[in-house]
Each structure stands twice: as C-alpha cells, then as structure tokens.
C-alpha cells in the first residue's frame, strides 16, 4: 500500500469515528455554517465537537504548516481528505475569511510573529476576520481608496469608511487596505493592516440589499488604533498583497459558478411539465434552457481544463478573470431562467424556496470581486495584449 493509500485508509477511519452524524447532513444555507470567533454561539454540540476535533488535527487548514495550527498535509493528502469528507458528506468544520483570505496572505507576506500570533487562532476558529477593501468611492478602482492611516509614532491612527465588509458586525478583527501616503501615486501609498474591532473607534452598520438581509456591512473607523506590529509587509507596499488576494478571490468566485447545482432542465420539467411530444411545455424557454445548459457544461469543462492546465504549467494566469466573468454572467442567466420556470410562484417574496431572493442576489455576482467590465479589461490587456489608450 502506498503512503497515500495508507493515509486514505487512516483518514477514512478517523472521519468515520470523529465526524458526528449531524455534521454529515447537507447544510440548508450559510446560516447552518460554523463561523467561529469570540462571540460565536455553537448551534449544536455536534458543531462544537466537530470543530474542536478537526482543529486539533489541524484539518480546518489541512495544508498550512503544523507550527501555525495547520495539518501540514501535502497537496495530494489534502485532496484525499477532501474526497473522504465528501464521501461521507461531512460539513466543512469552519467557514472563515481568515482561512480563505488572510491566511494565504500572511503565509506569503507576514512576518514570523504575525504568523504565530494570528494563524493558529484562525485555524481553531477563535478569531473571526472581516475584509476591509472597498470604499464608497473606490469600487472597481480599488486603489483610489482614501481611508487614512497616520503614523502616531507608537501606533497608527485610522480614519475612514469601508463598504461591503462581509459579516463585519460579527467579526473580531478586520484586515484592511489603508492609505499611508497621500502624496505618492495611488498604488504606492497603500498599506495592509490588521485591526482589532473591539474598540470604540470601529463601528459597523449592516447593508440591506435588494434581495433582503445581507452579510454586508459598512465599517467606520473614527480614530481607530492599530498597533505598529500589525502592519503586514512593508509600509506603502500593501497593493502587492491586495493584488494577490484579489486574484485569489476571483478564482474562488469564478469557481463557484454553476458547479453542483441541479440542472435547470430538470427543474423546469418538474415545474412546468412536458407536452404530448415529451417536450417542455414552454417551447421558448426550452430553447433558452438548452442553450444555458450547454454553456454550463462548457463552463464546467473549462474550469476543469484551466485547473489541469495550471497543474501542468500550461495555464494563462489571467484566465481566472475569464472564469469569473463567464461564471457570474452564466449564473445570472441561470437564475433568470429559474425565475421564468418558477412562474407566478417564484414572484412571491417569501415563498419556500425563495428563488426570487436568490435571483436578485445573483445580480451582484458580476459586481463583487471585480466587475465583469473589469474582468473584460483584464482579459483584453493581459491575455489579448490589446493596448491601452
């Protein structure tokens, strides 16, 4: 038996023994997830136990080094773990911007003390992080951000406002892009800082979306304090970290496109039925659904191909922009068709499956994480090498 096969057998056995049955049922939404943090209230004993057991093995962050609370697994072992968890439908023990965003940034750009301080707490779900990037006047043009970070000798003083900070009202700390030099060219005066939100100078306000309640907040900094050792990387070099995380985020969002969702055709048949010829009752919708399903297949094949090409070193880096662009536009199309096939029921605001709210929420897909227009600009410049005016 190869090492990997041994690892698989051991992992399977461990999961079988340690994953509580309640944690093997599909989540019904983000509300079922475990986000951790200082103020977290576990929704069940099973949720708590599952997090603790996984965190103890470092498997909330399987590929992180063991010294920072990770599992120290190789890429191959991590894939085995994912596969085995999937096989028993085990839930993710911890959802976290710390895991998805800050962790990779700290591993790449943080100093040893920062890694030692923050990564284990992320891995164990002790600290919940929010992301502070966008500002009211810095959307697609993120680098024009104006949140001011002043050097006060022994600490930094932060003043300004962030928007679209997900779950900021429940977060403990925030990693944020701030302006440390107002005279430099806009990309060269930005720094990346970590700010404890448990202070009077940081307040949040939830944002209601057209689809209803949302995890998004506005976050205000009024003379907020940031210790100097909480500057990540070099001062005024934060844009490098931002770019790294933006690409990272784009890959995550593009990848969530239309993956494991139930095929639209099946939904439409269930909702509208077939005619005598065995065809969907709405012949116009049938055409649109078929086209969208074909595009969905082609998109999934593209995600596969881009991943495999990247593995074999043939990839085009900027293809994450293509995936983000196409995936989000396709998802919007998909939900327009879902609304079409849901008919009148789908137009009710509080019906069971809530398709209307999901439909409205998809409209942000092509805005958040870099608008479709920004992705097209990136494809145009970085892949097609078209010139700038």
């Amino acid at each position: 038996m190869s090492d990997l096969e041994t690892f698989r057998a051991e992992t399977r056995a461990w999961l079988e023994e340690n994953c509580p049955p309640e944690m093997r049922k599909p989540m019904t939404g983000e509300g079922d997830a475990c986000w951790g943090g200082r103020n977290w209230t576990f929704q069940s004993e099973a949720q708590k136990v599952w997090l603790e057991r996984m965190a103890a093995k470092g498997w909330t962050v399987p590929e992180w080094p063991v010294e920072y609370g990770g599992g120290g697994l190789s890429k191959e072992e991590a894939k085995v773990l994912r596969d085995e968890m999937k096989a028993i439908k085990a839930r993710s023990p911890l959802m976290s911007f710390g895991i998805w965003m800050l962790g990779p940034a700290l591993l790449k750009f943080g100093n040893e003390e920062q890694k030692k301080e923050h990564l284990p707490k992320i891995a164990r779900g002790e600290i919940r992080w929010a992301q502070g990037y966008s500002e009211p006047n810095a959307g697609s043009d993120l680098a024009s951000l104006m949140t001011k970070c002043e050097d006060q000798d022994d600490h930094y003083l932060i003043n300004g406002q962030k928007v679209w900070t997900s779950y900021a009202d429940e977060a403990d700390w925030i990693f944020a892009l701030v302006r440390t030099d107002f005279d430099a060219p806009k990309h060269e005066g930005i720094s990346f800082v970590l700010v404890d939100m448990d202070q009077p100078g940081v307040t949040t306000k939830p944002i209601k979306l057209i689809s209803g309640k949302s995890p998004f907040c506005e976050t205000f900094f009024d003379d907020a304090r940031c210790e100097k050792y909480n500057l990540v990387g070099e001062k005024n070099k934060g844009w490098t970290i931002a770019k790294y995380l933006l690409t990272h985020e784009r890959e995550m969002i593009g990848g969530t496109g239309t993956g494991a969702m139930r095929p639209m055709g099946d939904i439409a048949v269930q909702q509208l039925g077939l005619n005598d010829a065995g065809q969907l009752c709405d012949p116009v919708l049938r055409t649109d659904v078929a086209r969208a399903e074909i595009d969905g297949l082609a998109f999934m094949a593209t995600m596969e191909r881009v991943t495999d090409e990247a593995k074999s070193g043939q990839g085009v880096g900027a293809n994450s922009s293509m995936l983000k662009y196409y995936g989000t536009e396709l998802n919007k199309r998909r939900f327009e068709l879902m609304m079409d096939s849901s008919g009148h029921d789908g137009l009710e605001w509080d019906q069971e499956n809530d398709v209307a709210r999901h439909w409205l929420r998809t409209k942000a897909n092509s805005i958040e994480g870099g608008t479709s227009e920004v992705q097209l600009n990136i494809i145009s410049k970085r892949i097609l090498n078209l010139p700038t005016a």
Partner: protein
Amino acid sequence: MAMVLSEEAGMLKDAAKGFLADSAPVSQLRKLRDTESADGFDRDTWKAMAEMGWTSVLVPEAHGGVEMGHVAAGVIAEEMGRTLTASPFLSTAVMGATALTRFGSEAQKGEWLPRIAGGKAITALAVDEGRKHAPAHVETRAERSGNGFKLNGKKSFVADGHIADMLIVSARTAGGDAEEDGVSLFLVPQDAAGVTIERASMVDSRNSARVILDNVELNADAVLGDVDNGYKPLEAVLDAGRAGLSAEMSGSAQECLEQTVEYLKERKQFGEVIGTYQGLQHRAAHLYSEIELGKSIVLKTLQTLDLAPDHAAMMVSAAKSKMGSVAQLAAQEAIQMHGGIGMTDEYDIGFFIKRVRVAAALFGDTNYHTDKFARLRKY
C-alpha cells in the same frame, strides 16, 4: 394614423408626469412596503387620479367617462412606470372598464362604469390558476344552480385582488380543462358568500392575491357576455391589460436608462467619469435603441386597440414580448452599471428590476407571448 401623440395625449402626459413625480414617486412605494400597508396603495393618490379623470379614461361619456382611449391610458401607465406608482389603474380603469364597456349588459354598465369612472369601485381580473399564465386552462367550475350558478375553484396571481370591490372571474361552464370553448366570465362581488381573498407578498411589493371560491352562489345576471363564450372577451380584456403593462414597462425602462446615464456622467473611477468608457457607452446606446423599438411597438399596439380592437392580438403579443425583454434588460443593465450601490435596498433602482419582473410575467410572460405570436403567425 401618425405615430405621434396627439396634442391632447401630450398634455395628459405632461400632467401625469408632474402629478406622479410630486405625489407618487418611488418613495411612496417604498413607504407602502416598509410600513406594511394593508391596502398596498395610497387611497388619497387614487382619489386624486380619479379627480383628474384617469379612472374614466376608457369609460364612455354616456357612463360618466372621458373615453380617451388606449393611447391615453398607455400614456398614464407609462408615466406610472417611471415612478412605480402602486395603484389599481390597470386592473380597474383599463381592464375593468374594457370588460364592462365592451361586453357588459346595459344593467352591468350602469351599475359599474360610473363607479369605476368616479374612482369609487376597484375591479380585478381573476384568471390564472397555475404556475404560468394559461387563460384557457380553467379548472374553476361554474355549475348551474337554481336561477344562476355556483362557483368553485382557486385563482392566484390576481393583481389588486384583495382591494377589489368586484372580481371578474373566469370559470368553466362546459368543455375540458384546457379548452377555450366553455369558459364563461362572472362578475363576483368581493363580499359574496364563499369568496376568500388572501393577499400574497410579492417581489414588487405590489398588490396580488389568491382567491378561493367555495360554493359561491351567483345570479344569472352575474355573467359577463355569453355563457360558454367568455374566452374571446377574456382575451380582449387581457390584451387591454397586456398593452397597459407594456406601456408601464416602457416608462420603467426609460427611467432605468435615464437614471443610469446620469449616474454614468457623475461616477468617477480611475480618475475618469465612467461614462467616457466606450464599453459602457455602446451598451447604453444599444439599450437606448432597444427602448426606442419598445416604445414604438407599444404605441402602435395602443393605437391598434383604439382603431381595431378585434385585430390587435398579434401586436399585443409582440409588444408584451418585446417590451418585457427590453425592460428587463434595462433594469439589469441599470444595476450592473450602478455597481454595488445599485444592489442596495437604499437605492431606488432595485425597485425597478423587481416591478419589471412581475409586470413582464403578469398575463403572460415574454416566452408566452413569443410563442403566442408564433402561433398567431401560424408557425
């Protein structure tokens, strides 16, 4: 007929625009939603509309109306589409008035038309039963009973149903479940015994209801038009409503474009006003073109309803299909071009995408009318 508004219609348009901007802007709909208004519309605004003659726009002079026709009704609907004014204008002043004027007995006209014209009565059409619009698919039964009929069945997606004084209900008096023959129309007072009306909470925060008819006893004079032959009148009433909805969507689409173009002129990114980006310029220009096409076919359709109402079906379906897809494109582009702020509930543009979705679906969605158009064209 020249494809321009008459002077009279142009004046009506200006008056409507001014009144609605002052008295019933989007903030009125927002307030009705946020206060969970039981009525779902503003009765003072409705009263003012009646005083301006809007409720009598399709009512014959003999019955107290001003009888200005569908083009005029469309002008009002279009302006309401700009402000998303919630009112039973289409269900009552357009569809109710059309139903009674064209198909009512003298007694029915005498009873209802003056009240409609005066803004004293609200009517609603209860036609749909299933997930999608299918007016020939009628399972609601009307069985002969004594001197009249007994109705049993369920209706859904009844616009303005829960505020209506009288429902126009399609029910089957003969034939199979999906046959056009055997459908009859009934005037059902909302307070008739056995009628249960429940308001549904809709995406657009406008009025819509589910109606249950449980052994509702009606006299023979409750029939609108002829027994068993209600399908053609039903289609005529629906077509009046569909054209009105198309006009409404035209106004919404224009408003979306105009607000978006203004935003493009103001919003700066990368040191430039984003309206200078050719990518957005071309999309805005394309949208403008689509809206111009939509406006044209809507006007043509309204004119056809005035001149040759019995030959309007194909134009109505073309207009509803075209304007439905154009208005949805306009609302989608508006949100995308506004970016994040367009996604917030605080900003008004989201109300447009919601209303346009519902208006596009009401009485047959874009796909329904594209298919119907093809069927009418015999392919």
